[in-house]
């Protein structure tokens, strides 16, 4: 899935230093052995990760991975059962007031005042943080100009894309050093998603450290580093390039004229380990890495598949994630 390929090099200048790649720079957000349960449900268990200053860091995973819980703990809205976390050196429990002044937060659900206008919402958040819209206008200008023509409209009457831009403006109006965004692109169409990531890139260039969560695996490639998460645990943390590099299995792309029959046939083949649909191709792994492309080809030709194509392919983050899920 190459949904967001247009930004070719997601890493900003300077962020390619080996220090950052290994995560050994200055930890601006530090999460150490955090666990949290709701009754019997273990939402996150023993999560540790560090985000460097100026980094665009992604929490990538499906619903139930624990992304929101982790963010709410960082935002001082929830208290962890175990472990500790700091942001810019401030403890999420002891120094919660300092953190709230320093961090901008966009929750997963639209949580602005629906019965205030666009402008009123923005003024409200500026006032709460003892600042003015004029003072920090520069930071939000690129985003806010897109909704400014509708500044007298009630927030509840905005379209999805406009709500998203307003929420981001409100999260930025106190000039935070850290921005925490909980699934800002969920349910958003491919075009608006791309535009949103371009906005994030611009904010990163202004020096804001960004922690963003998403269930869309393809968005991982737009982050400097990511944590792949599932069921309250971190599967791996690394740069997107490194995660793909560490995937050592042989992966084939296969297609034919009848894709549904193709996947059924491949699943019955004794040399197939996994066969999953990836857009116009199937991504297939063999039981071991000795299985050659020609073996798949011969097997499928016997099954009368027409216009058959079998070739080696580089994995995507989604392949990496699925492989880790199966381990």
């Amino acid at each position, binding site marked *: *899935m*190459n*949904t967001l*390929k*247009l930004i070719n090099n997601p890493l900003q200048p300077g962020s390619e230093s080996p220090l950052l790649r290994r995560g050994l720079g200055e930890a601006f957000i530090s999460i150490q052995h955090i666990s949290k349960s709701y009754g019997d449900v273990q939402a996150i268990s023993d999560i540790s990760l560090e985000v460097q200053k100026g980094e665009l860091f992604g929490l990538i*995973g*499906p*619903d*139930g991975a624990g992304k929101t819980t982790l963010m709410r703990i960082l935002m001082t809205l929830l208290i962890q059962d175990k472990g500790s976390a700091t942001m810019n050196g401030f403890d999420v429990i002891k120094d919660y007031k300092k953190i709230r002044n320093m961090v901008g937060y966009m929750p997963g659900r639209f949580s602005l005042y629906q019965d205030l206008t666009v402008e009123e919402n923005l003024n409200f958040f500026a006032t709460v943080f003892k600042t003015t819209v004029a003072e920090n206008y520069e930071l939000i200008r690129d985003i806010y100009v897109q909704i400014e023509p509708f500044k007298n409209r009630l927030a509840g009457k905005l*379209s*999805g*894309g406009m709500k998203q831009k307003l929420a981001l403006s409100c999260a930025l109006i106190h000039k935070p050093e850290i921005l925490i965004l909980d699934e800002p692109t*969920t*349910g*958003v*169409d*491919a*075009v*608006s*998603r*791309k535009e949103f990531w371009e906005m994030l890139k611009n904010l990163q260039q202004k020096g804001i450290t960004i922690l963003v969560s998403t*269930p*869309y*695996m393809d968005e991982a490639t737009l982050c400097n580093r990511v944590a792949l998460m*599932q069921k309250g645990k971190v599967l791996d943390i690394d740069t997107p390039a490194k995660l793909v590099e560490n995937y050592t299995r042989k992966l084939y792309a296969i297609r034919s004229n009848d*894709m*549904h029959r193709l996947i059924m046939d491949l699943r019955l083949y004794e040399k197939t380990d996994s066969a*999953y*649909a*990836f*857009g*116009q191709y199937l991504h297939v792994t063999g039981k071991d890495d000795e299985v050659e492309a020609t073996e798949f080809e011969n097997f499928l030709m016997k099954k009368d598949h027409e216009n058959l194509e079998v070739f080696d392919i580089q994995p995507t983050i*989604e392949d990496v*994630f*699925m492989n880790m*899920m*199966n381990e």
Partner: protein
Amino acid sequence: MSKNKSQDTGFLPPLSEGAGGGLKVIEVHNLVKKFGSFVANDHLNFDVYQGEIFGFLGANGAGKTTAMKILCGLSSPTSGEAKVAGFDIYKETEKIKRNIGYMSQKFSLYEDLTVAENIRFFSGVYGISPADRKEKQDKLLKDLGLESAKDSLIGSLPLGWKQKLAFSVAIFHEPKIVFLDEPTGGVDPITRRKFWDLIYEAADRGITVFVTTHYMDEAEYCNRVSIMNAGRIEALDTPKNLKKQYSAKNMDEVFLKIARNTE
């Protein structure tokens, strides 16, 4: 609601035949829907054939939901004509509702009822006899591997199970068409792919699948795809032809070209 116990199967009107010989399960001609001066659907024209997986794509606010509501018999168009399962969308909305299935990510099953209670409820709504229900329910739970969850509350199930179940319940009464509104949001990549196995199986059984999604790889799994922008259908064809027409590598590029160039 259902007066005739035998369901409507025996009373279905004949479907018209398309140029290629396929039967048209949905026919839409010059469909317009206005809200005040805002044109949400601007002269839509398309047909969907029996057993087809039809992808209904578009940016947020392009008019997909409005069109789907009309096709499901929940809203009347301002002008134009359309038939769903052979029934008229102005006069026969109740018959349409009985012959379609609907599933969205948000509103599908009752969270505070058990799996079995949900099946019983929807069977009642669609006029399935208790004897038929029992047999079909056992098969459904066995096929999905959910026998052990029969008496669990829906709210307590993992999202992936809920989605599988919601889909199976939506086609429990063997509708002509099932409408799926972003059915796969939020689940992990393996569960998302397993969901598409269910879609293919339903299509193989002759159920027409009308699906919206924001995952562009899923657009590739559809037989044909329409892409809406600002109330109009800008493109409609097989994924293969669309990629050719827009000189694009994949459906994502096609989508970006269409939804971005027309402000």
